[in-house]
């Protein structure tokens, strides 16, 4: 199973990426929207079975109109998902995990119907967010079989 992991912080992504690889997943680690979009556009050659997306990052790679919707970069990951991923393949929603610190802001600005099926995992949580993320990926992998 191939996972596209869009996260610009090494402190967050590197250990998780290593763990996912240890668990047998093929991980495409994207630093920004350009990286992610490249991987997404190549999905015919290399199918993407799961997306893990951070919300807050520089909006480089989005169009001017899209950038305006990112709330200063806080919702960049979502705008990319909405405009480029879900529009092209709505079924991807059930394979997508939003892993972010800004879920409250996200819920404030995005209708629930727009992200129905997408799993959201807050990075700051009373439980272990990484454990939950890994479990979630495992679940997506099982459902994909």
């Amino acid at each position: 199973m191939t996972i596209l992991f869009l996260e610009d912080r090494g402190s967050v992504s590197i250990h998780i990426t290593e763990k996912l690889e240890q668990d047998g997943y093929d991980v495409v680690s994207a630093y920004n929207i350009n990286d992610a979009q490249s991987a997404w556009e190549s999905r015919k050659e290399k199918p993407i079975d799961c997306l893990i997306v951070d919300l807050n990052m520089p909006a480089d790679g989005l169009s001017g109109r899209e950038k305006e919707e990112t709330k200063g970069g806080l919702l960049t990951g979502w705008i990319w998902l909405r405009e480029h991923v879900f529009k092209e393949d709505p079924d991807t929603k059930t394979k997508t995990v939003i892993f972010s610190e800004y879920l409250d802001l996200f819920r404030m600005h995005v209708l629930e119907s727009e992200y129905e099926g997408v799993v959201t995992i807050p990075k700051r949580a009373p439980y272990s967010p990484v454990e939950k993320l890994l479990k979630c990926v495992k679940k997506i992998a099982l459902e994909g079989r």
Partner: protein
Amino acid sequence: MRFTHWPFRPLHITNDGEKSRVGSPLRKLTGPGIISNNYLAAFQTEIAHSIDRPTTLIEFSPSGEPIRTDSPLLTFRIHPACSLFRVFSSSHLSSGELCSGCICINSDARHARFFYGQTQAQIDAQLLSAVKNVPDSFFTIYDGEPVCGFERRTINKRTFLTYDCPLLGFREGVFPIYVEDRVVGVLFAGEIVLQDKVDFIRDRIRGSAERISAYFKQHPDQQLSVGTPRDLVIQILNVNDLWLQDNQDKVMSDEAYRAHLEKTCQEIARLEERLEEELTHQRRQYINERVGTRIEQFRKTLPQEPVGGRQALDLLWRDVEKVLSGLVKDFSFKYLSVFGIPKPTTKTAPRLHIVARAGDLPKRFAGSGYETIYLRLSALPDGKNHGSVYNPSEHYSVLKKCLDGVSPDDLGDFSLVRVGVPLHPLSSIAILVGYSEKYPGSAKENRPLGDLDRTLQSFNTLVVSSLSAILAATSEQEIDSRMRILRHEVGQLTVGLDALRVCYLNNPEDIRSLTEKKAGDLARDFEAYLKLVYLIFDSVKYSIDELPKVNPEPFLAFRELLFKWKDIYRLEAKKKCLEFCLPEIDSGDPERPRVHGDLNLLEQLVYNLVNNAVKYSYRGTRIHLDCAIDRGDPSMPHRLTVTNYGVDMPEEDRLYDLFQRGANTPEDGLGIGLWLAKKIALAHGGSIRHTPILISSFNLPLMEPYLRLPMSITDSAIRDQIQEELNRLRLSGEYDAALTPSSSDNRYNPLLREVLNAISQPTYCVRIHVRIPQAPKGGTAK
């Protein structure tokens, strides 16, 4: 009892009552855990789905029935990293008293003070009265702290109260729980803990509901009856008994987990606590400082008594205008105008000059031309004349009748009318404040006229308090924004720590299988996470408090100050393909003698500069760090330089001001780093500046990759330009200095899309210079 584990992993999951129930297998459990209020799960679930952020906190029984289960422990601390639930003793409840020894923290303490410490009968009366009788407007509780509001609301025909603290920014619902029209308990639900626990809590509540549902499916003979609350509680407790019996293995602790993670958990718990303290401190300090300073500034613009005159008034109005604009913008006023009244004269009708206004005036004032409002002398009450306007005992009633176009009905829109003492420049003023209908405290309350006058002691007070409110609201927004960034910064690190734990330390086998190198890397990463969190905290702390006194000591800059950044930013450097470049380390190097300074503060300084460099560097570039003496300067100070290649950092002094950030900066930042670096440099008797140099009109690390692309997808003019610049940069050595070498493990291999999209971003070499005298004034350097 304190929580020491984070990320939170409960040692037990239990029902409140289980812990102290005789014979319960959980009776011996100690330590943190999830205390589940399952006996009201059926109600909770329904309510939880009616609101955004359900969190069960506490229930008690206004009816006196012991719906709470028993535990001798009174306090479970509500920690931001975990979700805890306090329990009460059933003996307390059955005796009709609420536990008065309950100690709560943070926001919970507010309603704790409100509800606890009173007899149950008092609370019953208070709450039930609140639920049933509160009008649809705010009422407030003032206990010496900022005002918190209760508001009556209805969702799904269920009446409840929301408890809203505007300063601390939390809101929760207070729900009475009814069974057959009897209130059997009150449930607090809301975001008293951080919002991101929502999913977890929702899952837990849902889980409880499912267990209860499963139980009744298995025992169809036992219908969920609502005969008495006690019966209901007993039935639901039976469900939990059953579940606990079948799931002992799931709820017991994992000793291996504890052994390996104790240190991490303790550190993080401390950090979390410190964060909370810092947030509270920051809010108060910042708001006080901002509001205080602005009020002081405003006061200085006010004319001194008894000086008056046009000039003084003009000054005053200028500020008033600002205040009004702010009020209309930030609050729910429809319009707000201030009128000045001229000295009394017998020759002309008294006129009210609009000297400042904001928002839209009521339509009925339109005919007055907006500039002047005439009093309708014909409307004067019998026996009154226009001089009555200046009579403190009569002015309100006179104005009410004589303001052009104003009918008694309009008074619903005017909460305040104030006429001061004639001849005093500050008080010969009338103020009309129009409220929107929704605004609390509107004239719907029919407050007596005398109250209005007593409320407004003077115009000065009104302006100052309005100003305070606006500033406080603005400050709140600003500090919220910064706290969000702070939480984000810290959150990235704590989730990193969590990843470290989950990926490598979750069980002894994982740890044993680590290679020595990997274990070393992980240990360094662990230290780096913690170090960065502390540095972030300290930088925020210093942005409010004074710097500690500089305590200079000699130390070797490279080993102790600079070299560690390779480790601290290992992960970010790897992700961004950055490389740190430092000169060879040699303690005997005469160009790089020991630095004399405060190690902690200089470390903080370097952190802020390196952090800045990491954020604003392009991928695949180098960051150069050096600290040598400047032989070109007669005083030969140490010169610390941090050089990075990336986005521009304009030569503007304002970048060193607190909370200032460069325009178009692509990442979040607190706006503290450079300000603090400057403060630390100055405290050492030194200085700081930076020089941005445009070294290419293209994104340096993408130039070569662009040239390697097929001609068909590139622009020939751009290719020529890039080739030319590349030759120049290679000749000057700048190219190699700026880019991570191809031999590096961190070599950057950009993707096609990145190359095409980002090639036109110009590259700046930004170098920050910090000069520090070899022996600071008053220091102990030898």
